[in-house]
């Protein structure tokens, strides 16, 4: 009816680049600044582009940072906190989501309501109580303790997201599995879980953001220096070596690389996962 040819349409669509390019470039400036400052050597403080980029970029700061700090150790500690919490939140979250979506559970509405309550809890309000619980459980000063707290805090989002995508599974698919003699666990594991893959991708990225980026809980509950995660290092650095700006920014890059890399791998599934889950 409109009679517009596809070629014309796509030419008009391509005009959007005129808006999107400047907006994206402006949005990326802070990230350019971190990279620029991390490459600025201490012995040549000359800069171009309003101090954003170094005149003679070098990796000297990275060398310093790796020499002064056991970075691989901190990186390992961060992974030791983040990975178990991601695995647990996906497993326990999807189990609960399955029961709340498809099984006969007493007081279902209440359980769902209660489980989502953690969404409103700020870390700063629960840190004192959590500290005591961890002590009572013998998990104080342990990365697993931190990991399990993140699991509890990440569960509501995982349950909401995965439950919605479970509810989109046709009842006939469920019934077919039951007719084939599958028990609840088998139905959950072999039928539901694979179908929720896009939602699970979102949960993985979300939980990783929570567990990788938080610093308050490790700050108050991890005492031993050799179990501290990477996120704590920039704050320590800012306090102790405030003159080493280049090194500080090199640390910021090192802290961010793992989470950005995970996001880059998962990002294709994110939109689909959210679309399936946030209806």
């Amino acid at each position, binding site marked *: *009816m409109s009679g517009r040819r596809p070629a014309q349409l796509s030419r008009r*669509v*391509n005009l*959007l*680049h005129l808006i*999107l390019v400047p*907006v*994206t470039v402006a*949005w*990326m400036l*802070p990230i350019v*600044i*971190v990279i620029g400052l991390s490459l600025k050597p201490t012995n040549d403080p000359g*800069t171009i582009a*309003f101090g954003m980029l170094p005149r003679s970029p070098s990796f000297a700061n990275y060398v310093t940072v790796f020499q002064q700090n056991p970075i691989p150790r901190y990186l390992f500690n961060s992974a030791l906190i983040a990975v178990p919490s991601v695995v647990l939140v996906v497993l*326990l979250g999807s*189990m*609960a989501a399955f029961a709340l979506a498809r*099984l006969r559970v*007493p007081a279902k509405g209440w*359980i769902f309501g*209660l*489980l989502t309550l953690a*969404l*409103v*809890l*700020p*870390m*700063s*309000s629960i*840190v*004192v109580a*959590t500290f005591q*619980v961890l002590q009572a459980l013998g998990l104080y000063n342990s990365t697993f303790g931190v990991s*399990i707290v993140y699991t509890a*805090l990440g*569960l509501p989002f995982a*349950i*909401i997201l995965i*439950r919605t995508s479970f509810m989109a599974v046709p009842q006939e698919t469920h019934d077919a599995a039951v007719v084939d003699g599958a028990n*609840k666990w088998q139905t959950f594991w072999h039928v539901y879980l694979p179908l929720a893959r896009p939602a699970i991708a979102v949960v993985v990225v979300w939980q990783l953001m929570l567990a990788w*980026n938080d610093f*308050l809980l490790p700050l*108050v509950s991890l005492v031993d220096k050799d179990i501290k995660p990477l996120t704590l290092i*920039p*704050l320590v650095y800012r306090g102790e070596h405030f003159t080493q*700006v280049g090194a500080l*920014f090199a640390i*910021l890059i090192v*802290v*961010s690389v793992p989470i950005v890399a995970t*996001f880059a791998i998962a*990002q294709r599934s*994110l*939109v689909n996962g*959210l*679309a399936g*889950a*946030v*209806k």
Partner: protein
Amino acid sequence: MRHPLARRDRLTSLAFVVPALILFFVFVAYPIVYNFQASTLDWDGATAGTFVGLGNFVALAHDPVFTKTLLNSALWIPLTIVPQALIGLGLALMLNQPLRGRGVYRALLFLPTVLSPVVVGIVWAQILDPNSGTLAAIAEQTGLTFLKFSYLGDPKTAIFAVMVVNIWMYTGFSLLFYLAGLQLIEPSLLEAAKLDGANFWQRTTRVTFPLLRNTHLTLLLLGIIGSLKTFELLYVLTSGGPYHASEMLPTYAFKQAFQLHSIGYASAISVALLVIAIGSSLLMTRVFGAGFITGEER
């Protein structure tokens, strides 16, 4: 149905939720109860506290800093949620077109959201630094001297500066939710509107915008909760200062607990925060239905 098999069936069903419930009771319910209990005490966290009943709440009601935190939250909620939603939606509408390289735009614009608030805070502290910052450098080299300003050090601007950082960080988050929401809209509805002669603007405001209802509501709820919980960016950028100018409930609670060792008073602040957060969530589900969370049609 009152059959032993039916009971067994319910027990095995319950087993699927039990691990999540255990974690909930230990790490969510207990800390909430703990906060309520501690809020009735005058307590430094080390010695035995003295019971003061509602004394801490009476003190809160007369505490000008507490009033300030409430005012700041009242500003923060609309002034971050609305720009994030508008910019995010605008970008999502563009990126929903068959555009070359839209995956790249999407990834780059979402990037700030995945970064640690510590990283974001330190970078923006550098940008806004009145002496060696990027804006100061631009001011000096271009003569736009008004740009050289202590945004984070001035009580009048501090909270707004942190809001700008928040908007920078979380607009990509709104963008992603809107892109997901746009995927769920039946193309036939927009086709029909087009056939009826509606132009792009009309289609967007009359068809697309109302159909994104659940996305708007989800972002509103997450935005309100996120605003009330704001801690990390403030901690790194202003620590709630100068003179409590950018203080919010979590930073104030943190200060009371860890710097002034008034655990009782800090708990009272946390209780206030919880009541406001749970209250506004319940209010939203009452007004708009819980469908946008549960995924059920109303």
